[in-house]
């Protein structure tokens, strides 16, 4: 139970458990028809890793083109398709499912002491839906690509572009339903499947974060679904909804798009924040500072996140008075994020801190997310956004939160729970090295883009004035380092599957139900239903005061 903090020393040799979810059955069919949330998590992980690399290759094309000011490497159409496919793949087929569909799927039932998610069939179905959607996306890419930008602004997307808009939109639409089903499953599971004694305030913060993110998935995603349907109808059948030639309003499209897509950025960050909360406590061997503050701030972000979407449209011709409201709420939504950052930092205070790889990623996350979030304030600031919007400043802002934040959190979580998922430890040294490479490469790639943005370099530009070349070269150089940093984990993680040290049930001496069962866990997660008798993060009796 969570009270029973083990005194097991990590050097103790462990053996793999005889039976676990991975060796329960070996046939391909047993994987493709599985209803085990852990196996579905693995399926998701393989799928989205693939899309991360597809998106990464598109990013490489973009960066290579921008090495020189002239548009020489790629045709302008090719470049436009490259960044569009980069954005689409990375956002819809990688980052949105990243932590929730893999780690969330794997861990939530275990963390609350359940045998599975509430609807295992729907869980499997959601993976299939995702794959079908992703195939549409890939098909769109292979048969010519799309060039509208990941935002699909009308009327470019509905009338003027002559690329595969409908195919891509349908792909995103389908993948969106996968996200809705995942969120639905999480919400019901967290409400109805908790083990005896597992009260709301004994839930790990990871679960709280996913609960908040699920609210967004369920309530936001349908709006983008219908929006994309309307775009496809307008494009395919010439019916008029957004068409300005019929008196339609292209800004309505933006409202409907961002109604989902702003909250979606919190789908992309909240689960990552959940990961960081777990990792920070584990590796400082200390209860989390301000449990309730962090838990409620997740929900606050999810709710307030729905009220700020038009901050993407400050100069788009919306009413100035509406802009006032949306800007104000954008500033308010920053406060719960601030609460989290400070509580994580405070958790380290008087802890017993171990510098393992997951912790390095967590440090990286805290720093880079802070920069990314604070630069979000620049954009939320009305008068300043006028100058910064549609420039590389925005590109830098969102890569800081999405790559510096969520991708790091994803890697953090993968390393942290790798022993649980596979039963083996990753090798510490190469892991630390690649964490360092990612950190350095990342900053080198995106820090210069803040400056470029303030200088006025517009985003989605295939060529640019020569005076900006130096900064762009720096950025491309950073991207190469970053690419190596992302490639390394693929190698050593695969290596560790066979050669990694056997981990044992709880290599990090963490509290939390998932660490009480064997690694890898049995198909039913627990040999007997656990009973929870204390709060999470119970790393010893409460002693100190601040």
């Amino acid at each position, binding site marked *: 139970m969570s009270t029973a903090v083990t005194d097991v020393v990590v050097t103790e040799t462990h053996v793999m458990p005889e039976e676990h979810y991975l060796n*329960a*059955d070996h046939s391909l069919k*047993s994987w*493709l*028809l*599985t*209803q*085990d949330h*852990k*196996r579905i998590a693995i399926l998701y992980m393989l799928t989205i890793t693939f899309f991360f690399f597809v998106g990464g290759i598109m990013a490489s094309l973009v960066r290579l083109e921008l090495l020189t000011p002239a548009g020489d490497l790629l045709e302008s159409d090719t470049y436009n398709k490259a960044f569009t496919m980069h954005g689409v793949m990375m956002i819809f087929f990688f980052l949105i499912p990243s932590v929730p569909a893999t780690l969330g799927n794997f861990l939530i039932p275990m963390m609350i002491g*359940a*045998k*599975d998610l*509430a*609807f*295992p*069939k*729907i869980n499997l*179905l959601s993976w299939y839906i995702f794959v079908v959607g992703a195939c549409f996306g890939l098909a769109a890419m292979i048969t010519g690509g799309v060039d509208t930008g990941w935002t699909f602004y009308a009327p470019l997307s*509905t*009338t*003027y572009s*002559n690329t595969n808009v409908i195919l891509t939109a349908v792909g995103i639409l389908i993948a969106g339903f996968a996200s*809705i089903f995942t969120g*639905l*499953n999480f*919400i*019901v*599971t967290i*409400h*109805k*499947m908790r083990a005896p004694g597992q009260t709301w305030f004994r839930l790990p913060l990871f679960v709280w974060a996913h609960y908040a993110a699920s609210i967004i998935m*369920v*309530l*936001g*995603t*349908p*709006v983008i*679904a*219908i929006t994309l349907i*309307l775009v496809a*109808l307008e*494009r*395919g*059948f*010439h*019916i*008029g*909804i957004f068409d300005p*030639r*019929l*008196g*339609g309003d292209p800004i*309505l499209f933006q*409202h*409907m798009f961002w*109604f989902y897509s702003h909250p979606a950025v919190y789908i992309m960050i909240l689960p990552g924040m959940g990961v960081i909360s777990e990792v920070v406590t584990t590796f400082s061997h200390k209860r989390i500072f301000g449990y309730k503050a962090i838990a409620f701030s997740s929900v606050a972000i999810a709710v307030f996140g729905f009220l700020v979407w038009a901050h993407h449209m400050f100069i788009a011709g919306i009413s100035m008075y509406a802009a006032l409201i949306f800007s104000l709420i954008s500033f308010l939504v920053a406060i719960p994020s601030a609460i989290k950052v400070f509580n994580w930092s405070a958790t380290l205070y008087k802890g017993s801190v171990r510098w393992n790889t997951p912790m390095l990623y967590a440090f990286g996350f805290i720093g880079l997310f802070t920069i990314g979030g604070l630069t979000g304030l620049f954009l939320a600031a009305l008068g300043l956004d006028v100058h910064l919007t549609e420039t590389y400043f925005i590109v830098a802002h969102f890569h800081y939160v999405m790559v510096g934040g969520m991708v790091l959190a994803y890697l953090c979580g993968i390393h942290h729970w790798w022993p649980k998922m596979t039963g083996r430890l990753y090798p510490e040294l190469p892991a630390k090295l690649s964490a360092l490479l990612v950190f350095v490469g990342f900053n080198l790639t995106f820090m210069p883009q803040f400056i470029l943005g303030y200088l006025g370099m517009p985003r989605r530009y295939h060529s640019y004035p020569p005076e900006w070349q130096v900064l762009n070269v720096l950025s491309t150089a950073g991207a190469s380092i970053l690419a190596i940093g992302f490639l390394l984990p693929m190698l050593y993680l695969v290596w560790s599957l066979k050669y990694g040290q056997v981990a044992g049930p709880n290599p990090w001496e963490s509290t939390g139900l998932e660490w009480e069962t064997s690694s890898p866990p049995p*198909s*039913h997660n627990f040999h007997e*239903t656990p009973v929870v008798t204390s709060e999470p993060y119970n790393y010893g009796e409460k002693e100190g005061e601040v």
Partner: protein
Amino acid sequence: MATRTDPEVHDVGAHGHHAGDEGHHPRHLHHFDTMDQQKDASGLGMWVFLIQEVMFFGGLFCAYLVYRNRFFPAFGAASATLSIELGTFNTVVLIGSSLTMALAVNAAQRGLVKRLMGFIIATMILGTVFLGVKVVEYSQKFEKREIPGQNFCFEPQGGGRCAGVSEAQEKETIPDLLKRYMTGGLGHPPGEPSDSALAHGAASIPGETVTTPEGHSSGEEGPPPLPGGSERQRSMPGSEIYFSLYFAMTGMHALHMIIGMGLMLWLLYNAHKGMYSAAYYTPIENFGLYWHFVDIVWIYLFPLLYLINRHGGH
């Protein structure tokens, strides 16, 4: 298989729905502790699904709200072309089907399987009537060319008959129109100049002497004209958006009903096989929620689409 230790779940296929009737609680899935927990969970799941549906239709209502505000006269005029008789009739039919559905659930709760099946069949009949009426309404719109797209035509002043529509065109049958609409609608790449005599810029423009820099196509100035005939251009501004929304909203609603009809067939089949009893009728109950939701959407669609400005005020 993930559930080795639990033989009863073995035959639950990933997609299909299993047919085994073994054991005391044949529908009790292994990962739930109790039947009650299982029922609670699927109930909540259904409700969460329904609020997802609310937001899905919400996007359409949002577009409707914006454009109704902007094009109130056109919305009023276009709305007047819908038949109140048919709309009211359909509303009553759908409310009736909600009643029969509620009674079906009630029968299931009491374990009266025969009655349950009877009410489901009644619900399906009412649903079919509704969709049939919808087909009639849609085909009327087709005939009058009040279909968004390049053959669109709507001129309330001309007594409903479009001035630009020739007699030959008037005589076109629905399949003809459909074909023309589909090929035109899909085959006409956006931006391609249309045969319309009214393609923009027809008026002579004094001072139109700008020489364009090289690299830009010269001569042509202006946006690609709206594909379609001159009737489309002359139609009352905003009316086409009304009809686009009309078809999108009622179409989405009808799609939900069609899906519902399919589900009802499946429920009937299961009921026939004796799957439901007073102890287990969750699917019936959850489907009932879905059907009532579809009814609620129509309760809003009816006044919003059929009854705009019927009294002829401003």
